[in-house]
């Protein structure tokens, strides 16, 4: 039972990270119908930027740990968001009216570019987050120790998702984003500046992805240049699982995927850990072809 509870915590931690990355995929898909293959690499850049900021500015020593983390998180969010905006402007906007697969190939090019840029800037070795920024407090719960940082990370991802949910569903700009996702032409006629909305989505999505990268560093301590690939693929699976384009779907999909994967690895098979998520995806899509919360679109075949 104790082990089970521990696994739930682990599953929620990783699930929260998947959900944050998945939000970036799903929002971009919502407005552009584009799979942003470079999103996983923006996430990796977030992890590396976080590490560099911690180390080079000596933030770890001079500030209280949690204050330093919050500060770095905001900086990472801003920097990666800007990068996402630049990416949209240069690699995707010229292909807005082209076939969707052309944009996918451009995204693949961007992904290769970013991955190798990270490789050139930081090198191919594993990096370890400094111990001083990883709070070592252990909270004891039901008689067992759980690192406090896990709870903080779960809390932070839930908080970010709630803010996003509020933003999308309760503000005027959020409504404009939803309108642009449903029908760009009609949104334009209603006086919405669709270009600005798309640019905004490319700030929010990568921003959240960057923070998720930082969270991986804080939770597991270790980052490497190719981690965007597996996290990105899983997060995209999560987005599809929840029904792509659907924001609450991405959140639920991420959490479910994190839990299923962690529990599956703990109780079924560790060797097939990375395959579990894909089996789940295929099963769900066979039963519900548009994901858990996906809109029902008639596809008669």
């Amino acid at each position, binding site marked *: 039972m104790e082990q089970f509870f521990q696994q739930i915590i682990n599953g929620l931690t990783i699930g929260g990270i998947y959900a944050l990355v998945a939000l970036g995929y799903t929002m971009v*898909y919502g407005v552009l*119908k584009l*799979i942003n*293959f470079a999103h996983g690499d923006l996430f990796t850049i977030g992890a590396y930027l976080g590490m560099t900021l911690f180390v080079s500015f000596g933030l770890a020593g001079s500030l209280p740990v949690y204050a330093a983390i919050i500060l770095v998180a905001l900086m990472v969010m801003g920097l990666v968001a800007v990068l996402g905006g630049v990416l949209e402007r*240069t*690699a995707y906007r*010229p*292909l807005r*009216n*082209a*076939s*969707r*697969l*052309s*944009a*996918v*190939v*451009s995204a*693949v*090019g*961007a*992904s*290769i*570019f*970013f*991955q*190798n*840029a990270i*490789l*050139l800037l930081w090198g191919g070795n594993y990096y370890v987050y400094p111990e001083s920024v990883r709070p070592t407090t252990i909270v004891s719960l039901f008689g067992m120790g759980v690192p406090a940082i896990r709870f903080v990370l779960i809390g932070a991802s839930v908080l970010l998702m709630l803010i996003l949910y509020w933003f999308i569903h309760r503000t005027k700009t959020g409504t404009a984003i939803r309108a642009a996702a449903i029908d760009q032409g009609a949104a334009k006629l209603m006086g919405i500046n669709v270009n600005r909305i798309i640019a905004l989505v490319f700030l929010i999505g990568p921003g959240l992805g960057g923070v998720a990268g930082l969270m991986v560093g804080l939770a597991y301590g270790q980052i490497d240049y190719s981690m965007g*690939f597996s996290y990105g*693929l899983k997060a*995209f*699976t999560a987005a*599809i699982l929840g029904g*792509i384009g659907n924001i609450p779907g991405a959140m639920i999909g991420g959490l479910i995927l994190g839990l299923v994967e962690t529990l599956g690895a703990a109780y079924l098979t560790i*060797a*097939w850990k*990375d*395959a579990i998520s*894909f*089996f789940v*995806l*295929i099963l769900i*899509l*066979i039963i519900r*072809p*548009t*994901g858990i919360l996906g809109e029902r*679109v008639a*596809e*008669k*075949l």
Partner: protein
Amino acid sequence: MIRSKSSNNTMKNAHIWLFCVFALFMALLPQMLNTYWTAVFVSVGLGTLLSLSLNVILGQAGIFHMGHAAFYAIGAYVTAVLNTRFGIPILYLIPVAGIVSALFAGLVARPIIHLRGDYLLMVTIGIVEIVRIALVNDLGGLTGGANGLFGISRPEIFGIKIKKDLQFYYLIWAFVFATLILFHWLNNSRFGRALSCIKEDDIAAEGCGINVAHYKTAAFMLGAFWAGMAGTLFAAKMTIISPGSFTFWDSVLLFAAVILGGGSQAGVILGAFLVFGLPEIFRGFADARMLIFGLALMIMMIIRPQGILPPRPKKFTISEEWQKKIQNAAAKDA
């Protein structure tokens, strides 16, 4: 559109000429290459073969398929297992590997073929990852885990053992040219027309009496069959195979080659040359070579969003008998 027969023939002749010139060029090319570049063109040839097979699925039928390396892997592993365990000669294994790949493709395609574009894309990525992980986990004790299998023998044709890069060059490119002819013929057949129709609008295709799910599955299996055969050639060329050769990224590169090329045969060849050849040309940039390659991929896509050489829309001539019938009908209406 009704076209006169003669201009159609000129077009046809131009194609045949282009094909012959290209074949001649590729036949003479090794004379100008050192061993390193011969080896590069062997892998470009394999890439071309795979891209052509993916083109049936992605370019002709318009199915978003990003897991082609799975079928390639199955062909290579079937070859390796049967050859190392039972000593079956490589040449006999070429069709066997193709058939096993095609059967696997049929099995996985049937339940998922109706999925909407991007969902299907994700599922095919899932398949390629599941296959890779299965290979790493030494499925059934056959695949040798992460180290893979080694000791695959060389193919033997008319008593000549194919082992030098130059020999593989001719074997693989001969295969490519045979494929070109076959797929060209297929593209103009009833099957090819059905696929074009499905690609343009699958609901309209269904309305025209084309069994869409059936044809899509068939396209999937045909592409997988060819990828499986390419897998045999790869296994025989390398003599060592491991799961690392069949990753998601290999699938993505094939996908990029087809889209970049635009979908016509000449385009796909060009796409394969760019995707599999450019990283070698950029070798001078040392560490930055893949960085430049990523950038080049983006720029090429932005310059030619429709691909370098998209296929011309198909044109059909109406026989004189029918032209008369149409004219008569029109006269009647008037």
